[in-house]
């Protein structure tokens, strides 16, 4: 039992350090010698800014998504506390995986960023005379078929051709900084791109070396991946890099299914009108998100809660601290979202499946799915 308490202590320290105000945002960290060139040469990639601006329909509203509570909750938790480390959504076709992620973009309250910064860096504390503005939190879609140069950034081709000038053109990772990076069909993404993404997601920094130019820029983002298990499993290495993992299934009861079809049909016929109808509901969720974020630092995590979490992880035999940390962070984010003062058992129980199910060692001889195993352990630790 001593070991367990020690363990809980380590996790507790981790968490306390985090809530101590260090946001981890250090602004645009162009620290290399090439930084000066890069800063001069930086330019935003040529593209229409937000999707609705090009005349396309606004995304399906988040609040109008029927059922799929776990998926919605996981996304909100990741939005409250990005350090949870990403969400993996696996499940049947046509269950609204992509819809939910794209809908999230519309919910997120805008963030303050330095004007003209290609990485939409947060204003640095103590620096005067910075021009800042409110920008939408980026939710960047990584299209299948994207090439590596556009993902990590490369030399600006136009400048190279026109004036023979070396300039860095930031890629999708730069655009996703401080926001979300979404990979649909994560299991179909090219392996070498997956490696780059994991590397950057883990370090929070993107390093590009090209034509003698060396660029280093912050790339902190919440990685959201989705996929269909029928298309192939995800590499195990990729699996446990995600903080939360949700399984979505097609609803089987008729009223839910009818509601899904009706809402989607109404949206397809008149996207703008439909979104207007759900605007109030979406705004309410947005306010809960903002309030949750503010409250997050004040959420108490009692030793009892830490012990519970440690016990649960020990029971399931998850390796390392990552599972415990994620579970605790997710429980804390849920407490913040629900307006609680401290992390309660109910919060831990709610988020345990999504925080742990993808961390269990695969046991080919155990017929039970990982969700069932987590639930079994929950019943044993918390009682029925």
């Amino acid at each position, binding site marked *: 039992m001593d070991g367990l308490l020690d363990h809980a202590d380590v996790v507790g320290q981790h968490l306390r350090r985090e809530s101590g105000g260090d946001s981890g945002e250090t602004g645009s960290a162009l620290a290399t010698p090439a930084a000066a060139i890069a800063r001069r040469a930086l330019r935003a*990639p*040529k*593209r229409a800014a937000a999707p609705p601006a*090009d*005349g*396309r329909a606004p995304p399906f509203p988040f609040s109008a998504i029927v059922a799929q509570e776990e998926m919605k909750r996981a996304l909100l938790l990741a939005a409250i506390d990005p350090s949870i480390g990403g969400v993996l959504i696996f499940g049947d*076709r*046509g*269950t609204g995986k992509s819809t939910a992620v794209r809908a999230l973009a519309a919910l997120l309250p805008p963030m303050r960023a330095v004007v003209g910064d290609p990485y939409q860096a947060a204003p640095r504390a103590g620096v005067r005379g910075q021009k800042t503005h409110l920008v939408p939190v980026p939710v960047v*879609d990584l*299209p*299948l*078929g*994207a*090439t590596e*140069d*556009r*993902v990590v950034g*490369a*030399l*600006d*081709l*136009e400048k*190279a*051709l*026109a004036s*023979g000038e*070396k300039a860095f*053109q930031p*890629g*999708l990772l730069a655009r996703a900084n401080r926001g979300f990076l979404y990979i*649909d*069909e994560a299991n*179909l993404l*090219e392996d*070498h791109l997956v490696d780059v993404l994991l590397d950057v997601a883990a370090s929070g920094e993107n390093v590009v070396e090209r*034509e003698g130019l060396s660029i280093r820029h912050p790339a902190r983002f919440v990685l959201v991946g989705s996929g*269909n*298990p*029928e*298309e*192939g*499993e995800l590499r*195990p290495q990729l699996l446990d890099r995600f903080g939360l993992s949700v399984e979505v299934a*097609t609803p*089987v009861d008729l009223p839910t*299914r*009818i509601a*899904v*079809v*009706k809402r*989607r*049909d109404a949206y*397809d*016929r008149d996207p703008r009108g439909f979104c207007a109808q759900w605007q109030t509901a979406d705004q309410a969720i947005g306010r809960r998100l903002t309030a949750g974020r503010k409250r997050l630092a004040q959420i108490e995590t009692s030793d009892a809660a830490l012990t519970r979490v440690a016990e649960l992880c020990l029971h399931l035999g998850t390796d390392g601290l990552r599972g415990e940390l994620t579970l605790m962070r997710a429980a804390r984010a849920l407490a913040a979202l629900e307006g609680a003062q401290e992390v309660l058992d109910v919060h831990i129980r709610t988020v345990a499946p999504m925080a742990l199910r993808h961390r269990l060692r*695969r046991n*080919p*001889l155990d*017929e039970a*799915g990982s969700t069932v195993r987590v639930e079994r352990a929950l019943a044993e630790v918390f009682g029925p």
Partner: protein
Amino acid sequence: MTVPGASATEVPALTPWRIAEIAAALLALDGASIGGVSLRAPAGTVREAWLTHLSTLRGGAPCARMPAGIGDARLLGGLDLTATLAMGRPVAERGLLAEVDGGVLIVAMAERVEAATAAKLCAVVDAGAVTVERDGIALTVPTRFAIVALDEGIAADERPAAALTDRLALRLDLTALSHREVEPPVFDAESIAAARDRVAATIDDETIACLCTAALALGIGSTRTALQAVKVARLVAALAGREAVAPEDAALAAALVLAPRATQLPARSEEADAHEPEPESDPQPESPPSESDDQAAAPPRDLDEMVLDAAKAAIPAGLLAQLLAAGGRTKARAAGRAGQLQKAARRGRIIGSKAGDLRCGARLDVVETLRAAAPWQRLRQSEAAMVGRNGLIVRREDFRIARYKQRSETATLFVVDASGSSALQRLAEAKGAVRLLLAECYVRRDEVALIAFRKAQAEIVLPPTRSLVAAERALAGLPGGGATPLATAIEAACALADAVRRKGRTPALVFMTDGRANIDRGGRQGRAQAQADALAAARSLRGEGFNAILIDTSPQPQPQAADIAAAMGGLYLPLPQADAAGVGRAVGLALAAGR
């Protein structure tokens, strides 16, 4: 004005061709809103007639053909290198998907389209736009198009990617249709143009609910399908000249969208009995679903029932027979020789290139390397001029290495003896070993397939898949008992391995049996003939050059099993000498060595 084919009374019988014609009309009307059609038919006059009909109805809308092996640059667009170098600024090239905006994309040999390509196509369809993030180009081009996926598959498992067909509302099978059944058209371009004003036909909640109910009753999981049925119902109403969806429109939509996807019969037993199909396994060319005649003539009844009956009537006879007889499982049979043999597949085929170092074994993709270097020449030459160099400057970061399919992908086919002679506790052990091997295959990202044999037949329990969950489920549900048709099993395994190889993957066969064959190829009892047939089948397997392993599951090692292993030129592993984990390791090593 009423459009021909307006109501049920005007169309006396919905022949397969008539259904196909209605599908073409719906595509011409607003194909993009319903995704498109998956058309299973061999290349031939019937398919040509349908495509011609479609293009007549569509008038001058653009139409593009997508070859199965299309590259990303052509599909999505990217940098137009020639124009870029000529103009001295980046020039984007529009991809096929952007070009076909407002028209029809014909996907040729859709069953051979890679899952990754299909996923890109789906992403564009879902977003209603092509997002290009390639070669220094970043742009988003809105595009809407209908897809006609030409599926020329013959074997049951030769199908277009499910992700793609899931997005196509309509599904036609003209395989069994002869050119004599092609009828003169009912619709023309003018009737389509007239219907176009009404595509926003209204649909009431009751009808939506009833289409959802019918989808669920037919065992269709995806809610996307029910949504597609709603949209098709709306277009059908528009085609019939109505402002609101009438019951018969919903019924026709159910027949078009839901019926071909049915995985079960609605749970109304007396109805199901009435529709007992003729005991035939192959759909005969001249057997269109006959029930449709009575359906159309029947007086309107309860909406729910009407929609469901329409769907049921349209379920192809072959599908019904398959559902009832096999419970949805695919029977093992000799794979058809559809498609071309890929000559290069055995040595790996180039599927693209990636940036990388030239280490040993890597092959430089010269064209791609030069392409990568070309745009930077001006920049580099201005630098090089300072040190007095000229000519083409290729740097290390330009190197592009050819990527092969072959090196990475193996499909392990497990052929498991589930007969009575492999006593049941041995079967349990065999299952344990298979599970361990499955877990290993999963780590290596291999595909696995499972063939079980017992009584008089071998059955593909699990077609090649990467899904561990599916494999474990198939294994858990494996029944045991009966005779040992070893020869048939080896032949089935050979056929599947051949199909796998033609897809460009390397098959590896793992047999788990006691080798005591007692049913010969003809399905007759008799140990001696059965054994001889099994040896002959094993020799022909060796002739194909497949990598094989035989795991002897009998309590004492059997000479027969060792003989068969030798005949197929494979490794022989007696299970008694090793526990399941030991066998797993041995097979892993053997497979790695055989690569």
